[in-house]
């Protein structure tokens, strides 16, 4: 098999309700894939199963050819996974630079630390705010900071859960360019997103989740022109 990430029949139920119900998904190396679907479709749950926050009720997760289902989150991360949460998960009281250093120190030797920190600060446009406490950043900047921490791990696969939530159109566009640049450098990226303009900007292939299942997979045009997709979004039965 050649997929970088593969979920097989991945299920998670909470108190009898399925959040995901037999999701089988294959992400090829080098892809940018968008996951879309109405609220409660199981998108964030799927990410949490992939990263190991939740243990699945059934099914497996394969990464780079290995079954990572039994592994704890930090071990999955060390194999090359990285995630940006839906709610910004940064170190609010620590400085912006310190936030990045904590992430960078996993991969970067002390001697190159300063250079790499500068590079990342510049890449994220956060250099002027470097000494601010991360909690004082704007919401969009917090999102970038967290993306910066996630990519500082130099992951093979990056999971982004609603990276543009709370961003202005300009910020959203910039985020899209950032994603494309990372992808051009060889990073595989899976994005949960609602903003269709953003999806069109970054992704070739889109997966629609609905009621915890894969509803449809295809190009964005195939998806938006599909009557069934329109129906689930507009709630018509």
């Amino acid at each position, binding site marked *: 098999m050649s997929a970088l990430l593969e979920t097989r029949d991945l299920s998670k139920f*909470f*108190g*009898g309700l399925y959040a995901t119900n037999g999701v089988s998904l294959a992400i090829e190396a080098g892809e940018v894939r968008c996951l879309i679907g109405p609220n409660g479709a199981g998108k964030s749950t799927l990410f949490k199963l992939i990263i190991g926050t939740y243990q699945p009720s059934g099914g497996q997760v394969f990464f780079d050819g290995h079954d990572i289902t039994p592994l704890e989150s930090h071990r999955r991360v060390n194999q090359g996974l990285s995630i940006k949460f839906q709610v910004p998960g940064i170190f609010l009281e620590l400085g912006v630079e310190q936030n990045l250093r904590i992430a960078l120190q996993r991969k970067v030797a002390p001697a190159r630390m300063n250079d790499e920190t500068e590079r990342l600060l510049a890449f994220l446009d956060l250099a002027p705010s470097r000494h601010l406490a991360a909690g004082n950043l704007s919401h969009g900047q917090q999102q970038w900071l967290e993306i910066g921490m996630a990519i500082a791990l130099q992951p093979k696969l990056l999971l982004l859960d609603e990276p543009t939530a709370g961003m202005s159109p300009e910020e959203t566009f910039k985020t899209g360019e950032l994603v494309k640049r990372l992808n051009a450098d060889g990073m595989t990226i899976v994005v949960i997103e609602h903003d269709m303009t953003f999806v069109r900007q970054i992704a070739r292939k889109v997966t629609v989740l609905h009621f915890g299942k894969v509803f449809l997979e295809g190009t964005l045009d195939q998806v938006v022109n599909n009557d069934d997709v329109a129906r689930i979004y507009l709630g018509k039965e």
Partner: protein
Amino acid sequence: MLATVIGFLYQFADTFAFLILSSVGLAIIFGMMGVINLAHGEFIMCGAYVTVLTARAGLPLPLAMVLGALTAGIIGMLIEYFVIRRLYTRLFDSIVATWAISLIATQGMLIVVGPSIEGLKTPFGSFDLAGLSFSWYRILLPVIALLILGGIYWLFMKTPFGVRARATIQNPSMARALGVDTDRVYALTFGLGAALAGLTGALYAPTMTTVPTMGSAFIVQSFVTVVVGGADVLLGAAPAAAVLAFIQSVLTASYGQLIGQVGLLLTVIVVVRVLPKGISGWMLRGSN
């Protein structure tokens, strides 16, 4: 044989009552507000002191006990208003603050009333069965403990306050949006927890020496019951107390008091490893 069985049952009921009574006030405050009230033992002490002093001044014992509970409850609400409310967004700090209050109360009482006061006699006397002597009062305590649990169940499940309180735990901002005065709910909850602690002190006042540090005699048992019971008092307290009382009674009967205590602690450590959210967390597993 009969004596052993009766002796064991008596011991079990006594321990059960002690665990329930010592933990219920702590458990309500923790379950509702997430605050571990480290001044819990001092509310117990407060209830005991008020009971002893007013009873010796001539008030009938049951009234003195009610007064003890009320005093603790009112002090509890004052503390909630002046301290806890200001620390809602800093949970750890609110716990540390209650420890400060505990320190002030214990040592302050030492200064004000001295190391000990004359206690009360245990009421109702005792009776003999199968060659053993039993205290009527101590048989009454488990019954009262169960009544209190029943009362709490009624309060939280059947009254308007209970509905508001449960709404507040589930989702404070939603409850506020629906017109629940959550500040008032928290104040009443803290007051209720303190009053129940005071009642515990009042109930045990006739059976032990009243000293400023008496709260620490209850605090480990109350922690242990809350940890084993988990966050949901209504579900967790009774089974946790039953399990722990059984373990402690068996060990005490077989190996003495000390091993009973140590056994209790080991049980907690094992429970914590196996059921980190306690019995109520286990009963509610999968629902979240």
